[in-house]
């Protein structure tokens, strides 16, 4: 019967989602536990900071530039109708700093760094390198997971700060090129209408996004089953989970921190 089957599959899906949520929570708790006396591999941390942060700057900057420009283009009809050029910087800057900047940068970061991290940890899992570490009495959580989580958290915040700046530059460039708004007007519009609070709001969000991306991507990496196909499937699941958690966290943080 169709009804019975769909209820069964709904239940199976709910159980699977709960199991993954539980697994992610446990991994997060283990990471926090490992941080209490902060003993971690410093060289591994620096290597991850470089690989995850510095190498992501070009794609993040490019994304942010377009995002800033897009916000100006979207507000252009409104600005033109009201003939209020001083509002362009306000609308674009507010949207970029509070919402679009952190979200788009986090989505790109999840695609580039989170997915890559899942693939790397997944490959190590299917080739049984994690068991090898355990056999050598090295705790994989402390050696592999904690440096990655810290590196992603730190680097997403840094990239969001850089990205915000690039997005505002992009907004000014597009405003000049498309709407003919002078640099000085745009600059004044930014400085008068944007408060430090708007910028910090985005930075708080990026901290939460960074933690969520890091923990989900590590979780899906270490629980891979079944060779190359499994790694592909895990990466897919990791980016989807990261995207959903970014949107949910964004919602709750906006309410808490408005």
């Amino acid at each position, binding site marked *: 019967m169709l009804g019975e089957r769909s209820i069964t599959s709904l239940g199976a899906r709910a159980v699977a989602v709960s199991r993954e949520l539980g697994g992610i929570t446990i991994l997060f708790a283990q990471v926090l536990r490992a941080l209490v006396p902060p003993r971690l591999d410093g060289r591994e941390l620096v290597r991850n900071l470089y690989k995850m942060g510095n190498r992501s700057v070009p794609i993040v900057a490019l994304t942010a530039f377009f995002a800033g420009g897009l916000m100006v283009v979207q507000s252009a009809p*409104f600005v033109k109708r009201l003939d209020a050029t001083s509002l362009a910087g306000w609308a674009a800057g507010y949207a970029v700093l509070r919402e679009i900047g952190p979200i788009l940068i986090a989505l*790109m970061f999840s*695609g580039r760094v989170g*997915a*890559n991290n899942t693939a790397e940890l997944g*490959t190590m899992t299917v080739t049984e390198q994690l068991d090898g570490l355990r056999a050598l009495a090295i705790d994989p959580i402390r050696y592999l997971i904690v440096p990655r989580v810290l590196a992603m958290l730190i680097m997403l915040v840094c990239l969001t700060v850089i990205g915000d700046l690039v997005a505002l530059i992009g907004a000014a460039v597009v405003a000049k090129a498309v709407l003919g708004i002078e640099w000085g007007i745009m600059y004044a519009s930014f400085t008068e209408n944007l408060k430090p609070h708007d910028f910090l709001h985005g930075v708080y969000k990026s901290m939460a996004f960074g933690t969520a991306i890091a923990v989900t991507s590590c979780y899906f990496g270490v629980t891979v089953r079944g060779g190359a196909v499994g*790694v*592909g499937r895990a990466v897919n699941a990791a*980016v989807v989970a990261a995207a959903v958690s970014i949107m949910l966290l*964004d919602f709750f943080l906006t309410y808490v921190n408005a």
Partner: protein
Amino acid sequence: MSAPVSRRPDPVSRLGAGGLGGVRAGVELWLVLIGTIAGIVRMFRRGAARPKGAIVEQMWVIGNRSLLFVAVTLGFIGMVMIYQACLQFSRAIGDLSQVGTQFIRLIVSDFGPTLTAMMLATRVGAGIAAEIGSMKVTEQVDALRMSGVLPIDYLLVPRFLASVVMTVALAIVGAAIMYAAGGLTAYLSFGVNPRIFYDLQMVEGKHLILGLLKAVSYGAAIPVVSGFCGLRARGSSEGVGWATTAAVVGSSFAVIALDFALSVGALWLLGGDL
């Protein structure tokens, strides 16, 4: 005396190598796009080889199985956007009656299709690249070619057609959910009358055409970019992981770049009337 051989190449040759690699990748991407279009033409002319019911199956995988994901993410982002917009409008202007009409204009012409496509780029893009990449590294793609079937016709054409149809469909669903969630937030948090919020007077045909044009081009770009990344996969599980990562980044970036190009183009064509 011979010059010391350095293991790291100097910056100029690294830049050159990067540039050459970029050009080569661009040419390959172009060939995949052309191959897909040619595959569609071939399919309509004489029914090219593809598994039976492949398009319907891909539509199910790309469309129906993404529905919950798109609904949840777009619903939440719609609520957040309206919350932030109302907060700002009530501080600066004090009049919230314009929020709904401006919001639906933005949803139809931009946010609906673009955010749906960003979400699909992560889910569908990663899925396509993982699937085709796994087939590539296990030499199933070569086996296809050996049996006289073009891998692009067999693998990419069904996904391309399914993705174009389903991106448009999901963009419409996503936009509706975003609009509904936004109106609910405006009513519950700021007491905006739903009758004033749900007012479609600002939406005109050109917004709808721009939105549909965007949805179609994202729907075409995502499978082409991810299929290209999947077909480039080398090695074993590590290669598949790399291909999947590249597909997510590449198709997300393609969505943003296409959005920018189409928005600027529309603004340029229509001027301030958009």
